[in-house]
């Protein structure tokens, strides 16, 4: 077996210690890495062998848990999914933009969690007696929303969305996409409740379709498409409610 190729990797990592710092600053690390490694591996090696005070989140190392999102050379990425071989020169690593920095690369996800809760991202089921059996779903009904169910809540789309950065009250791409995912679910009856949050100025109408969310999504969810579809749904609801005689959305 041929040995793995090694390479000296330089990383500029943004550091912030809330106990001692008033500003964040970059710290340069130089570490020998295998060519096949990802940025997260390099950070782990730094923490193990150079600087145990470096803070960052990670868990699965396989682009499933959505914990290790950070800005890598200015781009929102999962660090477990960013191969060192794709980078030349010094790699700049920062915490996700648009989120408050708790410490080093760790951001506070509180705002996203609150927004996620507001859109009720769960099946609000049809009421039927349990003896009538499960709610069946055809493959076609599943395919209608399957893509939008792949979201891993990594918040890269929030870091990419300039609208969220400029107007933080925007409910944002992932939460709205999950609202759409449950609205499209044949087992769900919660659309009206969700649209009270979704079809508002803070909801989809804050989206100006920059499309950055879909470009950075590591799970290929395409939040931009969900939001544009929600705009159409919201518009049709409004027309039915306001312009048609006796119309109810």
């Amino acid at each position, binding site marked *: 077996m041929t040995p793995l190729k090694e390479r000296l990797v330089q990383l500029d990592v943004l550091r912030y210690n809330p106990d001692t710092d008033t*500003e964040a600053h970059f710290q340069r690390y130089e570490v020998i890495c295998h060519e096949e490694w990802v940025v997260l591996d390099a950070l782990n090696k730094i923490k193990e062998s150079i600087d145990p005070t470096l803070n960052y989140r990670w868990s699965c190392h396989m682009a499933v848990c959505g914990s290790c999102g950070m800005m890598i050379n*200015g781009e929102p990425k999962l660090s477990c999914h960013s191969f060192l071989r794709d980078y030349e020169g010094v790699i700049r690593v920062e915490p996700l933009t648009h989120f*408050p*920095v708790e410490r080093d690369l760790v951001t506070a996800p509180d705002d996203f969690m609150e927004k996620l809760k507001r859109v009720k991202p769960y099946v609000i089921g049809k009421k039927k007696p349990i003896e009538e059996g499960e709610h069946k779903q055809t493959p076609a009904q599943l395919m209608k929303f399957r893509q939008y169910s792949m979201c891993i809540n990594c918040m890269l789309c929030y870091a990419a969305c*300039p609208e969220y950065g400029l107007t933080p009250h925007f409910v944002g791409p992932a939460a709205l996409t999950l609202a759409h995912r449950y609205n499209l679910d044949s087992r769900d009856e919660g659309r009206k409740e969700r649209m009270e949050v979704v079809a508002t100025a803070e909801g989809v109408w804050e989206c100006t379709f*920059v499309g*950055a969310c879909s470009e950075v999504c590591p799970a290929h969810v395409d939040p931009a498409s969900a939001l544009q579809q929600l705009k159409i749904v919201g518009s049709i609801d409004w027309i039915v409610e306001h312009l048609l005689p006796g119309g109810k959305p």
Partner: protein
Amino acid sequence: MSRRPLIREVPPATWFLRHPRYMRYMAREVTSLFIGAYCVLLVVAMQRLSAGPAAWQGFLEALRSPGSIAFHILAMAAAFYHAGTWFNATQKAMPLQIGEEFVKGSYISGAHYLVWAVLSVAVLFLAGVF
């Protein structure tokens, strides 16, 4: 240990300089200014037409000026770019599911381009170009 998170503000006027994709977005938005300006021009044209033959002739003369021709070329380019981004977006906004499969996005956008071309030819025909 208390929490003291660092808040990083987004520069409100220069945020789009941070990334090429934001610049592309702004380019798309800026094309709207040309579309808007052309709509104003059409309104002025109607006003001139209602003001009588002499006013209309004067308006037509003004359209032939180099500045006017330059504006029309720019507005046309902006309209093409804007329409392109719009039609490319249709596949995201209006997915078409047949059975378990979704129709390819390029077909949906392509159909819009086709209708655009047909309608453009129809308008040119009505305008007596052919």
